[in-house]
Every structure is written in structure tokens, then in C-alpha cells.
């Protein structure tokens, strides 16, 4: 079997003395969509921060195509082709919409995504390209955040709770854009509290519960009971 695009091997993560993740092993292969579900505080964002390098780890615990990257800086990991749409959007307030997108392309990796194709995906952004990024609606900001991650032409995109704080119709339209993104061959990790959305879009799913992996499998093979049990730790 080929090396996974990205995997964690027995990942332990700490915030000071507090341990947030216990022996978490997940894998993401090229081009697949994996969902990570779990309640608030289960460790989903910690897992994302560990993978992207915002949280330091032992080098061997996070591997990119077999190579240990756990000790690398976040900007080094970004240059390897791993991009994140952060929880809460976190656009740069001092930058305009277009500048946010341009800075997403800072890593300079070649690929199908550019300002032109991002504006094709989200036309409304093209209309508001010079506006301050934070003057847009929540859904539009989410589009900017996604576009910003796409501009890096990554091999793997991490979507961290993209439905948080958005109206259902907005969430629906954002998830409708997802297939268009994934069809270009980029792998995706979808972190969600909304189980239905996550299961509907993914090939495989992991469930985290209080820092531990409680379930893994394909959406088709898992029952509602399995998931509820794993989610709440019952």
C-alpha cells in the first residue's frame, strides 16, 4: 500500500501540562475526503493544530508521505502542500478580500487555483475584491477563507468547522462548492460538529472523544447507534 499523504502515529498532544490527545492515529490518502467528528473539546482542533504545525510534536508522530514532520514549523508544513481553512474563518482584517486570497498563494505552489479560478468558484468575491475582508457576511468570509486555502494549491485541505456560526442555507451553498474543489484531486479533511453534513460528504470518518479515537470507518458501514455511542462516549 502506498504511503498515505498524511498520517499521525500515536499522536499525543499537550497544552503545557494538560494532555489533549492520547495516542491518536489517523491517515489521509491522496484525493480522499475524511471527516473528523466529535463534541466540543473532543480534540478536533488540537488535531488540526498538531498537523499544521501550530502545535509542536515529536517529529515521528506526524508524517507526510512517510517523512516525519511533527517538529517542523507551521510555515514549513504549509509549503509542503497542507493548507487549512481555520476555525472561525480568521481572515486578516488589515487585508482586503483580494489581498487575503493573494497571501494564500504566498507559498507559490503550481496548480489549478489562481485568483481567476477562485473568482469563478465564488463570483461574489470577485465583486467585492477590494473591500475590507471583515466587512463581508459570514458566509462570504467563509468563501474567502476557503479561497485563501485553495490559492496555496495544496495536496490536502483541512476544513475546520466551516459551518460554525452560519445560517443553514449558507452552509448548504458552501457544501455544494465542495465537490468542485475535491474533483481537482486535492484531499480534504472535514472537521465538523454537524454529523449529517460530515457523513454526507466523506469517504471515511473518524470520531474523537475526550482526546481519543473512539470510532473509524466508512459512513455506509456505521450505524447511528455506533456513532452516537462514539460521539458521547456512552
Amino acid at each position, binding site marked *: 500500500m502506498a504511503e498515505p499523504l498524511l498520517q499521525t502515529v500515536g499522536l499525543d498532544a499537550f497544552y503545557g501540562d494538560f494532555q489533549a490527545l492520547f495516542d491518536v492515529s489517523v491517515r489521509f490518502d491522496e484525493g480522499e475526503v475524511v471527516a473528523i467528528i466529535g463534541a466540543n473539546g473532543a480534540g478536533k482542533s488540537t488535531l488540526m493544530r498538531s498537523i*499544521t504545525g501550530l502545535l509542536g510534536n515529536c517529529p515521528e508522530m506526524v508524517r507526510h508521505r512517510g517523512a516525519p514532520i511533527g517538529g517542523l514549523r507551521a510555515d514549513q508544513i504549509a509549503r509542503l502542500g497542507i493548507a487549512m481553512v481555520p476555525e472561525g474563518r480568521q481572515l486578516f*482584517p*488589515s*487585508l482586503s478580500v483580494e489581498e487575503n486570497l493573494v497571501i494564500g498563494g504566498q*507559498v507559490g505552489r503550481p496548480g489549478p487555483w489562481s485568483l481567476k479560478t477562485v473568482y469563478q468558484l465564488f463570483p461574489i468575491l470577485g465583486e467585492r475584491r477590494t473591500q475590507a475582508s471583515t466587512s463581508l457576511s459570514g458566509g462570504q468570509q467563509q468563501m474567502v477563507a476557503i479561497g485563501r486555502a485553495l490559492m496555496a494549491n495544496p495536496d490536502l485541505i483541512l476544513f475546520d468547522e466551516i459551518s460554525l456560526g452560519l445560517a443553514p442555507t449558507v452552509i448548504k451553498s458552501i457544501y455544494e462548492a465542495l465537490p468542485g474543489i475535491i474533483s481537482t484531486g486535492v484531499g480534504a479533511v472535514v472537521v465538523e460538529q454537524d454529523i449529517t453534513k460530515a457523513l454526507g460528504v466523506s469517504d471515511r470518518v473518524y470520531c474523537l472523544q475526550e482526546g481519543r479515537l473512539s470510532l473509524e470507518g466508512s459512513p455506509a458501514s456505521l450505524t447511528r447507534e455506533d456513532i452516537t455511542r462514539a460521539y458521547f462516549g456512552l
Partner: protein
Amino acid sequence: MEWINSIVQGILVGGLYALFAAGLSLIFGVMRLVNIAHGDLIVFAAYLALTTITMTGVHPLLALLIVVPVMGLAGYALQRTILNRTLGDDILPPLLVTFGLSVILQNALLEIYTADPQKLNAGSFETQSLSIGGGLNIGLFPLLMFATAVLVIGGLQWVFYHSAIGRAFRATSDNQDVAQLMGLNKAHVYGLAMALSLAVVAIAGVFLGIRTSFDPAGGPGRLIFGFEAVIIGGLGNLWGTLAGGVILGVSQTIGAKIHPGWQLLAGHIAFLLVLAVRPRGLFPRIDDERG
């Protein structure tokens, strides 16, 4: 007419104060660091120019070609070796480390150059003036100083809002975690910001040295002028800093006209007045709540 001449002089020296302030403001904007050694670095640049001139015999303004890059490199090194380690939520480390730096710089200069006041000699250019009818005289050198300040501030604005590195500065300042997700190495970005700041400090130092005599203990006074210009003008606004410098300069020359010993005091009083009445400065950036 004498009064008008004084006010014009005050306006022009305001350009120098704006130069003192620009580097300070830049660093605070990008990384929330206030460099207590800023004034001492300005004086250090003047001494660097002095040594350059002594060794090569060039005109002080030409010495800029050497002093600016050297200070820029020194700024990058300083940031990456020492100052990056002080950044974080606690305000004490950067303050105390730069304070220690200030003491080291002052005493190093004292040790190398002694306490004798020095001056950079720019020749007759220093005293030439332009006569604009009605008894109004404008010194050519002060005019150049002011024009340089305008150019530098304009240049910094351009860098900040129209260049890739400026984008990196703004992004890193907004959210350093997410900036790293964009592939920006924040240690490097901060290093570049300090390099730019000290490049401006170099320009300020050379102009200071030509305009007046300087000595190793002159740093704190320059830091205070720069700081007052920033506060009067308003945080986060470089053009405001120019206005702040001008107001400071004019206050000082008016004060001096009333009574020779009141020059510095008049400037401080203007600063305290603005602080009392408009604590955020006269032209603050609307979205800048940071202080």
C-alpha cells in the same frame, strides 16, 4: 516675521522628529514591540556615520549609502537573535531587554567615542538658505530634512499597502498563527520589519548628526521626541506621525521664542495637552484599539 520664521523652522524640524518616530511606529504596528533603545540606535547611527566619514572622507549624506544597509542588517540580526525571544503576551521582557540594550549601547559609545559632543560636517550646505520674499528665510538643509521625512513616510506607506512584504507585515501583525499557515516564517518577517525600522533610524541618525551635535547620552531624548510625535499624531497612522512631529517642533520653537529655557518644556506640555484632551491622538486609525 520673526515669529513666522520660527514657526517654519518648527515645521521643518518636525520632519526630523517624524523620522525619529517612523521606525518606532512601524515596529509597534507589526509586532507590538516598543524599542526603548530606539533613540540610542539613532545616536549609534550618527556615530557610525562619523566613523564612516573619518575613514573614507565622504560627505555625510553619502555616508547614508553605508550606514543604512549596515543598520538594516544589524536590525535583522538583533531581531532574530534577541528580540524575537521576547515577543509574547508579557510586556516586561521586551521592555526590560530593550532597556538593557539601551544601557549597553550608551556605555559602549561612551567607551569608544568618549563623552565629547560630535557633529557631522556637511559643509556650507548646512547654513545656506532660500529667501522667499518678505523676510522669510528657509534653510536648505532643514528643507531637505523635511522632504526626506515626507519621502520616507510615503515610501513606508507604499511598502505597507502595496508590496508583498507589506502584506506579510500586516497579516503577521493581525494573526501570527494564520500568517504562518500561509507559509510566512514569522521570525523572518519580524526580522525584516526591524531591518526596515533600523534603516529609517539610520537616515534619522545621519540627519540628526548634521543638524546638531550629539553625544552618547543623547538617545533617551530622541526616543522621547519620537514617542511624543507618535502619540500626538495618533497610533497606527504614519502621516499622523508627521503631523505630530510638526506640532511638536512648532511647540518647541514657540516655547523657545517666549523664553530660551522653555523649549523642551513647551514640547512636553503640548504632548501632555494632547494626551489629556485627545488620548488616542489627533489622527488615529479608526480600527486601532491597540495601545
